[in-house]
């Protein structure tokens, strides 16, 4: 009888412990991942900004052998970014004037914890094709938390070492996670040859679920060189913005 009481008591204590550990995991997932990821991503943004300003600083002198081949397309310099490396900053005025997140190459679990991920194999920002990105809607700093507040015409600014690339939001769709056609070179037209520069953003839908994907399509609006600067109108926070 005493042994039975001990067994039942121990099982009860184990179950209570397990329950407390599960609650702890929920707290970690919903709260702590945001705390650490927001801190890390802010540091990454500072590092990127420093790197970009430094790169823009010493300008190359006039070439002694001028020719069209001597000046390759500066947008093409983003080719072959190593997996997991941050190469751009995304700014979305609708998400707040101070909103800035790093864009990294790759969309695995680890990379998405560090910012917005770029689907490997899709176009780089500003180029013809589809610059496809993924971001967390909740947890890990949730860069795309307010993706559902984006409206047609909203600007999305991608800042690279050499350029500001401005996209304008066109439309959104909600699809099941197997709809890879949303990141096709021409979104939702797999196999079609692209003639325009698109940007796709994907995030989970609804919030706190992985059931569906909330997908926003944007089209290239303007490209500005870093030297020329970005007109303030493209960073104006729209009326009724969440940020």
């Amino acid at each position: 009888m005493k042994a039975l009481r001990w067994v039942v008591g121990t099982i009860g204590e184990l179950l209570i412990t397990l329950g407390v550990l599960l609650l702890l995991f929920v707290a970690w997932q919903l709260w702590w991942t945001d705390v650490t990821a927001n801190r890390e991503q802010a540091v990454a943004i500072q590092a990127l900004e420093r790197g970009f300003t430094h790169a823009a600083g010493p300008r190359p002198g006039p070439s002694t052998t001028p020719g069209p081949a001597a000046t390759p397309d500066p947008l093409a310099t983003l080719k072959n970014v190593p997996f997991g490396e941050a190469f751009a900053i995304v700014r979305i005025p609708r998400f707040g004037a101070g909103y800035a997140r790093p864009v990294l190459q790759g969309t695995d679990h680890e990379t998405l914890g560090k910012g917005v991920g770029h689907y490997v194999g899709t176009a780089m920002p500003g180029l013809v094709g589809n610059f496809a990105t993924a971001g967390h809607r909740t947890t890990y700093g949730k860069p795309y938390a307010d993706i559902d507040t984006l409206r047609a015409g909203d600007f999305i600014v991608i800042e690279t070492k050499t350029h500001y690339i401005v996209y304008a939001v066109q439309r959104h769709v909600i699809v099941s996670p197997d709809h890879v056609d949303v990141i096709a070179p021409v979104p939702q037209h797999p196999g079609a040859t692209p003639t325009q520069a698109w940007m796709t953003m994907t995030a989970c839908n609804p919030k706190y679920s992985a059931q569906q994907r909330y997908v926003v399509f944007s089209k290239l609006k303007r490209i500005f060189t870093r030297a020329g600067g970005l007109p303030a109108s493209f960073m104006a926070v729209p009326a009724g913005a969440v940020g």
Partner: protein
Amino acid sequence: MYGPLWRLLPGRWPVKAFLSLILTAGVVVLCFLWVFPTIAPLMPFNDNTIQTGSPSPDTTTMAP
């Protein structure tokens, strides 16, 4: 389980209570910094990109 642990802790009850708190804090830190980050990628709700049928390394995926 916790009864024997309590008896194992040295000192009078305030000391035991203090040591229990430290042990609990240790478990929480261990979970937050090591256990949870390790098991998080295995959770279905963290599987968050767009993907085709077979989960191969070059499969494209979408995030939540």
